[in-house]
């Protein structure tokens, strides 16, 4: 069974209460949007952090990607708010 590591940053991390977690990797055609919706349906902090995907950004294996990208064979999905560095 392939695993996918989910990593969270900033208020996404705070709402969920975890830095990272491992899940079974969904079928490769599953998009990030699909997975985020499934996570949000867990309720609680997940719902709070992930229900409004317009407030979120994602990186798949450390590359920024749009939410309609498929997860494919990726090993790490990061979810976070728009970046505010610099």
């Amino acid at each position: 069974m392939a695993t996918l590591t989910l990593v969270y940053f900033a208020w996404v991390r705070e709402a969920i209460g975890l830095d990272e977690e491992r899940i079974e990797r969904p079928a490769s055609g599953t998009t990030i949007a699909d997975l985020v919706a499934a996570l949000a349906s867990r309720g609680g902090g997940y719902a709070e952090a992930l229900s409004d995907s317009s407030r979120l950004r994602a990186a798949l294996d450390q590359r920024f990607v749009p939410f309609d990208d498929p997860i494919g064979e990726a090993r790490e999905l990061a979810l976070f708010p728009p970046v505010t560095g610099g």
Partner: protein
Amino acid sequence: MKRVSIQTADFDAAAELAALEALGGGGVASFTGIVRGEGGLTALELEHYPAMTLPQVQRIADEAMARWPLLGLRVIHRVGPLEPGARIVFVGTASRHRTAALESCAYLIDWLKSHAPFWKKEHFTDGAARWVEARPEDEEKARGWTR
């Protein structure tokens, strides 16, 4: 010369400038970001995505090197808790041509703002804390360079 660092420690902007000046170019441009201490801010905390940050900032630096005729480029981005007045970020560029130095410096900071995995949290004297919200104009500014 192309050097990129992500670090908690402060840095010596003077030494960085001197190294860029020594490359023999006609112009050195720099930008230093400083923590503003307004509204009772006691600390700015910079979180990042360690596995991604350095490769991503290097990618942005490579992009600048490819786009402008640069003799050298230096990026330093700090992470962790920072006090008002502290340096957050330094971008320095050296080129034979002043326009290349100035434009690439602006490009680098615009892209760091909108395309590098850093997040800022503000802490205030009354104990409140707040994640800084991204400004749409920052993303627009970065997109401007792709036109």
